[in-house]
């Protein structure tokens, strides 16, 4: 579904991704771990189309379509979703209005009819329940006054509402307490299906206890240097990243 081939990208003339390769098929959950500065968040930014990141070579395709050629909104409409590491507060833009606008623009792009207010409300209630997101928070301004955990959970609620093909969770576990972590994980697990895929960027193995990945990749110095299954995450937890860096240099 998602195919990244030899991706080189950077910001302000500093190359961060140095030939990254990754294949993600429908139904799969890929975890990406790695030391600080390896390029994990940069990968998320490049995939979602954040400005300031320049791709110097390589390709990224989603179901055969060239993603790098698309604006951020078109990538979202094609089915890419990024759960931000630091979700933005936008006071004055209501959660509901924002989601309804997003959902309907995506549906219009796909040739589907826009949802009526009633249909939207029903969908919203259903998904709120699914990901255990507090109804009170839905009625507020986008992320305004939300705690860190609430913001992350709002990302998952949006994920549930927008139903993307590929969801990239950028350090969703950072700043979450144990209970929030469990709730977020439960939500993500309920959303997993044969039609979608997840890329989970994280530092810590703990999240992967709850969201069990099919593949674990180590991103070091702009490249994926090692791939394994969930046991690789446990190995990293034990040994750290040095042995991988050493291995990569050989």
């Amino acid at each position, binding site marked *: 579904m998602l195919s990244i081939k030899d991706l080189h990208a950077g910001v302000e003339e500093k190359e961060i991704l140095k030939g990254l390769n990754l294949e993600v098929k429908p139904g799969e959950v890929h975890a990406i771990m790695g030391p600080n500065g390896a390029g994990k968040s940069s990968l998320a930014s490049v995939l*979602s*189309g*954040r*400005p300031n990141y320049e791709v110097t070579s390589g390709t990224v395709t989603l179901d055969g379509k060239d993603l790098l050629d698309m*604006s*951020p*909104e078109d*990538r*979202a*409409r094609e089915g890419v*979703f*990024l759960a*931000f590491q630091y*979700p*933005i507060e*936008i*006071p*004055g*833009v209501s959660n509901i*209005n*924002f*989601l309804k*606008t*997003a*959902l309907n*623009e*995506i549906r219009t*792009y796909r040739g589907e009819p826009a949802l009526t207010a009633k249909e939207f409300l029903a969908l919203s209630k259903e998904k709120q329940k699914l990901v255990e997101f507090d109804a009170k928070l839905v009625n507020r*301004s986008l992320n305004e006054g939300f705690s860190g955990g609430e913001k992350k959970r709002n990302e998952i609620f*949006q994920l549930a509402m*927008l139903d993307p093909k590929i969801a990239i969770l950028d350090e969703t576990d950072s700043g979450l307490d144990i209970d929030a972590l469990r709730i977020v994980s439960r939500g993500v697990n309920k959303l997993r299906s044969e039609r979608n895929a997840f890329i989970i960027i994280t530092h810590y193995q703990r999240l992967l206890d709850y969201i069990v990945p099919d593949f674990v990749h180590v991103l070091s110095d702009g490249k994926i240097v090692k791939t394994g299954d969930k046991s690789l995450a446990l190995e990293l937890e034990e040994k750290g990243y040095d042995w991988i860096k050493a291995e990569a240099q050989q």
Partner: protein
Amino acid sequence: MINQLETPLYESLVSKFEIALLQGNDDRSRTLRQEAFQTFKTLGFPSIKNEEWKYTNVLPFLKDNYIAENTPVTSGTGYFQQAAKLVSAHLEAVQNSLKGEHKGAYRLVTLNGLIVPELSVLPSSSEIRVLPLSEATDQPSFEQHFGHIARWEDNAFVALNTAMYSDGLFIEVGKNTIPDKPLHIVNVLLSDAPVFVQPRHLFVVNAGAQLEIIETTISDDTTIPVFVNGVTEIAVATGAHFHHYDIQTGRNGMRFVQRTEATQERHSNYSNYTFTLPGADLVRNNLVLHLNEADLESHLYGLYLSAGTQLIDNHTEVHHKMPRGESNQLYKGVLLDKSKAVFNGKIYVYEDAQKTNAFQQSNNILFSDKSTVNAKPQLEIFADDVKCSHGTTIGQINKDALFYLQSRGISEATAKNLMVNAFAFDVTQKVKIPALRTYLEQLIAVEMEKA
């Protein structure tokens, strides 16, 4: 002053003045006009050397060969029919927002300053008395207030209007009267040659009464220069409430210099909501409030969205003269393209005005790097037990927020519109009439679409 004496406008004004003088049929008005014109001749139109016009160069806008109209041009049914069409299209646009609003509004249509009864739906005079100013000269409120509120001694535009005003509106609400609907004034401006018009209004809200006025302006789609030098005097009596909405749209070629000056008595509330949208070349609003007694409230809300090479200048002045007055100024601006905006908010707290609360805020977003805003708060405080504050921000659109919205599938244009509405929200939410708020949001959306 030399270049001013040579402009076609100046010559036209001098020659038309004699005619204007004949309009007043009493000595007081004749004397007033003469003194005011003398003052205008002495002061001349302000240049940028005048502190109040430092960032707004009005002289180039005065160079067109305007004819200074004394009698508003309504002769010929052509104008009337055109006005009728424009009004009906305009009302449809506004009515769409009024759908579901059972209340609606009274409607007063003016064509180049003159009331057009056939297109209006006026309230009964027991609720709101509406007269052409020229027919109101023997009203007690007219004698009490006219010419006593708007200061012209040091202001060329006001002096000129006081000397040569054509006609305008006299609107009065009687004691303790609360009209059941707002009054929507639709000002239609049409001309087939450059014209300089000077409407003059007097709005009086008597003790315990209430009034809501919505002013809109419409025109055709030519680019013929029309310069409006307007003065509105307002008297808000004890315990009276006046909510004054002014929606300033326009077209190329239109220039507005508007002076709105109000006096307030005890326990009264004057709230002004000025929304300025793209269209006109120049909009200069001078809003001056005299809080003459104690225990009263004043709220000034402004939202300006400027585009193209437009210049929007808001000057406000609040004079706290007596104790326990509360004033609040909130002006927000969004500047697109190469447009310019100016905000100068003055607060004067006089010696006796103890326990004054006076707040001012000016927030601006520059959407392009070719737009400019000059914001200047000015506070002169002579009492020592007061709470006064001022704050100004000038920034750019939050790119992270924009990207966040785009990453959810929202197009850049829609995202910008959402953010502008979010920014404008604390001004637009102050609008007490929901239909009007919807209409404004629609106007903003249309402009952001063009951006």
